[in-house]
């Protein structure tokens, strides 16, 4: 009589009670309340909620005076497993520390491992929370310190979100 256990009416009723409860919750309380019951994000309209340690695109940070915090120690360039960072050291008037004249980042090979951020002793680079990084051109993946695609702001490309 083991086969009858699979048809135990109380088990079936218990399962249907649970699924019925979920159905009721989502039917009456879901859809853009403050605390939605459903687990999915309606992505293009509502932005996905990311964890604080989410690893997005590499970004350079400026301090309060608007100075680039990077001091060209080349730690990130050395530790990068795919060697996507290229830094050229330079000098700037009125600055004691070395100043990067170029900081090139080839995003198409980047694996978003965050080793560069961990190795940085001056907290001058972070991985931001941008995940919409797709572009139509290969050149858009080459980021530098100048131009519209620079290392300081979010990429302008690949914005599909229409969040309110």
């Amino acid at each position: 009589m083991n086969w009858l256990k699979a048809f135990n009416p109380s088990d079936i009723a218990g399962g249907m009670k649970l699924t019925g409860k979920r159905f009721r919750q989502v039917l009456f309380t879901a859809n853009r309340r403050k605390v939605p019951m459903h687990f999915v994000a309606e992505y293009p309209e509502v932005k996905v909620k990311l964890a604080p340690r989410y690893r997005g695109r590499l970004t350079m940070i400026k301090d309060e005076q608007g100075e680039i915090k990077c001091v060209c120690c080349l730690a990130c360039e050395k530790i990068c497993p795919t060697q996507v960072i290229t830094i050229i050291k330079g000098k700037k008037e009125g600055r004691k520390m070395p100043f990067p004249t170029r900081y090139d980042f080839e995003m198409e090979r980047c694996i978003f491992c965050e080793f560069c951020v961990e190795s940085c002793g001056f907290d001058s680079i972070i991985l931001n929370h941008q995940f919409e990084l797709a572009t139509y051109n290969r050149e858009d993946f080459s980021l530098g310190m100048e131009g519209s695609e620079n290392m300081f702001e979010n990429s302008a490309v690949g914005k599909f979100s229409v969040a309110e």
Partner: protein
Amino acid sequence: MPMTLTQTVVMALIQIVVLLAVIMAVVPIITFAERKVIGYVQVRLGATRIAGGHVGITGPINRAMWALGRVPVFSILRGLPIFMADGLKLLTKEDVIPEKADKLVFILAPAICMVPAFAVFAAITFFPGAEGLFTFPASFPIVGGLKFMGFLTDINVGLLYILGVASVGVYGIVLGGWASNSKYPLLGGLRSAAQIVSYEVPLSMSLLVPVLLVGSLSFRELSVKLATEMPLVAAVPLFLGFFFYLTCGFAETNRVPFDLAEAETELVSGFHTEYTGMKMGFFFLAEYANMIVVSAIAAAFFLGGHYLLPFGLQSQLIHALGAGHALNQPSILFFVGKVGFLLFVFLWIRATLPRYRYDQLMHVGWKFLIPVTLVNLFIAAAIKFVWM
């Protein structure tokens, strides 16, 4: 008023067209409801948009649906246009016939599956009253002054007709599986044949309970008398029979948890693996039409049909309040509501239960359902003998 031959033919044609149109409209809505209900049960949202996003041709539709998402319960209607997209997709897909397939049978199988599923509706009574659903105004050319009845025909072997015609549908599945000339469809078709042959017996025996209690096979007479002329004890075999019938109905329509004929994890997609385009669409149409038939039979015979209370309890209400009371009047809304609830139960069960193993299915069919439906039939016979 006696009807002329022309009037009879035109009236029947109008009823057939209306009935087919309603079925053809309801079946895609069930497929949409299936996505939504299963989505909500799994704490997802289901279909909420159609292709194209907020720009392009479908932009206005998608923006309207996005705005609808703010409304609490009506947000379930988001994504409703997707059933039109589904239909268009099925109609415009390439129709592939495998080279080694038996061409005639391959083309015939979806039709064999679908025609019985639709023909069954001829014997189903949607409203039993002699006054009909509405009367055509006298200004209409041929049918002026005639009543639009709530049933197509009221043959005195209605239930026998339904059982006989509905079981022809399995030939479509078996022949489709065989004609595909491929191992998975063949296995699916054979499984389906074995399953339906096994479950035909307890299904018929659970339906014998209402037949025994009323003493008729006419769908209309059964559904009216089961609600209004039953003693209180008759609720026991009707209540038990409802669950037995529903279990067998799930097996007969090849729905989860008895969808062994399709069994994605084992048989790719079973008997319709080789089918594409609208041929596969016909199999789907037949499956959902069969769901409606099973729900309609369960609603009419066990859940009180066109009356308010299920399991023959309406007759107690009639004793208490008198036959003229408003709660004792038949209404098509009760029937449609019960059928809708049973269709929801189909989807609910699908979202809850996993598929049973083949041996479990056969065990429960032969060793459990047939004995208990026999006992149930015996209880009904005793009630008929003692109380009626």
